[in-house]
């Protein structure tokens, strides 16, 4: 079995589902001839034709809104927003319609759309190309939000997202697109949405993270392991609805929680996780919950982006500080 990158696994998931479900269609800017700016849809138009892989005009609101009309007609659109920083024009459609169509029609019309978008920074991209806006989406009832952290999980979760009967925002960490190769069996096997993935088992402290920060969190866990600290690292995987059962079980076991995300700290998803764990497991905690997050600043241009993105050192320090409480 060939090893592949995350972006190749995403491409493979598209191809599997398009081959097995004729209602799956792909649309977005540059997704056809060009195969997407990250090549996530490369070859799909050649293989499945121009009717099923549609290049759209350059208008994110149109892409999201068009997908709604297509979905209500029984298609399963998988639409690409070129970068998450460009999602703002599409938010009206996502929040006002995509998230609400099932509810406002009492289930008469539904919206099985996948909106894919590169998430986060770290690849020396221009302004507005490196945002982590998952909290914006998680705040909207009716949406599901997914963020894979490996080629295999990207493949399995994208299949699940396409098969899901409700709109799924699929956040693809750009730093991981070509970060590591992994064997991914192309067998059409979906992974469950709404389930965390325990990437490393441990007993002293639980790290909850997602997307590209899983890599740094695992490295930090490895680093402190040398000092005899045992970290459990949980990849949230699905950010909405988030699997609090797994998180709470882990925190009750370890007694300590560190949340790591790239998005700004204030009103980030980490705050929600911390609040819920406080409500439900405060007396199991041995030390205060900590967050390692992006600063509450504008994502800087790329010369400073690695100063913005929390790195292994910040995570490792936070682990040690939590253990020292």
């Amino acid at each position, binding site marked *: 079995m060939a090893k592949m990158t995350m972006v190749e696994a995403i491409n493979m998931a598209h191809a599997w589902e398009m081959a097995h479900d004729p209602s799956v269609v792909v649309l977005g800017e540059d997704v056809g001839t060009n195969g997407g700016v990250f090549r996530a849809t490369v070859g799909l138009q050649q293989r499945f034709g121009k009717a099923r892989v*549609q290049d759209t005009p350059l208008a994110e609101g*149109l892409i999201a809104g068009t997908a709604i009309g297509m979905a209500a007609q*029984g298609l399963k659109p998988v639409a690409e927003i070129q970068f998450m920083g460009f999602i703002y024009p599409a938010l009206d459609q996502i929040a006002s319609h995509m998230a609400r169509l*099932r509810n*406002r029609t009492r289930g*008469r019309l539904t919206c099985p759309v996948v909106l894919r978008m590169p998430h986060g920074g770290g690849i020396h991209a221009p302004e507005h190309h490196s945002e982590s806006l998952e909290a914006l989406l998680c705040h909207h009832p*009716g949406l599901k939000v997914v963020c894979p952290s490996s080629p295999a999980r990207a493949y399995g979760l994208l299949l699940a997202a396409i098969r899901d009967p409700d709109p799924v925002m699929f956040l693809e960490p750009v730093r991981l697109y070509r970060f590591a190769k992994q064997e991914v069996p192309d067998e059409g096997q979906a992974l469950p949405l709404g389930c965390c993935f325990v990437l490393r088992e441990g007993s002293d402290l639980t790290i909850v993270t997602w997307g590209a920060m899983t890599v740094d969190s695992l490295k930090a866990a490895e680093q402190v392991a040398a000092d005899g600290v045992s970290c459990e690292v949980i990849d949230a995987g699905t950010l909405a609805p988030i699997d*609090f059962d797994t998180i709470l079980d882990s925190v009750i076991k370890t007694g300590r929680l560190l949340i790591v995300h790239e998005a700004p700290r204030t009103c980030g998803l980490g705050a929600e996780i911390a609040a819920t764990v406080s409500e439900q497991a405060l007396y199991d905690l041995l030390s205060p919950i900590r967050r390692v997050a992006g600063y509450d600043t504008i994502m800087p241009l790329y010369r400073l982006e690695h100063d913005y993105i929390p790195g292994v050192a910040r995570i490792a320090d936070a682990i040690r500080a939590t253990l020292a409480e």
Partner: protein
Amino acid sequence: MSGHTIVAHFEIPYRACLDADGAPLGPLPAWTEDGELLRRMYRMMVRARTFDTKAVNLQRTGKLGTYPSCLGHEATHVGVGAAMHSDDVLFTVYREIGTKFWRGVELLDILLYWGGDERGTVYQRAAQDFPFCVPIGSQMPHAAGAALAMQIRDQRRCAVAFIGDGGTSQGAFYEAINFAGVKALPLVCVIVNNRWAISVPVAAQTAAATLAQKAVAAGIPAVQIDGNDLLVVREVVGAAVERARSGGGPTVIEALTYRLSDHTTSDDATRYRSADEVAEARRLEPIARTRNFLQARGLWNEAEEQALKAASTEEVEAAVKQYLATPKQSTDAMFDYLYAQLTPALRAQRELARRYAALSH
């Protein structure tokens, strides 16, 4: 001057079949020989107005929420409905009850919706039509998407979208018609130019001479029509629908009408427009004009008019009675339609809502 040529030019035709009194301006389309169809359309206009009057009264007496009257738009709304095929899909703003009624949406549905109950969007017939769209202009990409789905599946159908004069200032309007032009989508867009977007007149929305010409930039054929002329609405929209369904691409139609009512029951139009202007517009309103036309053709008489009014009133009163007797949804209704499957967190919140709902009863 050398190097100066005209690279593009355009004309926007204006079309009408009837004059202000309902007299034909010239030879009429062949389909107007179908007297029963004309009578049906007229009856639906009266039905819409009867409902509309009642709905405003219900709001005034605290029995309905904020309601946007369709007074004066009946010819455009019913004409569009009558131009569509049942398997086409309709995307409205929030005023087009005449079109919805034509397509089989129940009076009760409209009352429930404006009465604060989502069950008013569960259309038994017209099951693919979208519900009212409150965020202005945002319905347009949905219509383009439905049209794209029809095109991908090679279906002989079309999407019909309404938008208001104010709506044409929204980016979503241009994005959708632009896309429809690029892909030659089976989309018919009807701009209902009723001259006022709440207090803002068309002259403050755009410097363009017509709203129809906005379609020129999208490469789409455009026409302006008398929106108070039932015959021309059905004729021009019908031709556009047939063209779209047969692969001929999109059309934008600007229907000139006038909002004779306040914007909604929360509005007071006397703050921004003169009584003279409204009186002049009322002279051109569509129902009397259509009745004049039918009477002159021998298709309608006073006895039928009285019978229709009585029947419409009776029908509306029956729907109102049913609406007022409909109990509100349980609090579960807030949770049960968010996703195909309830999430664990929502299940807990649903329990909480049940508990407090029980306490308040």
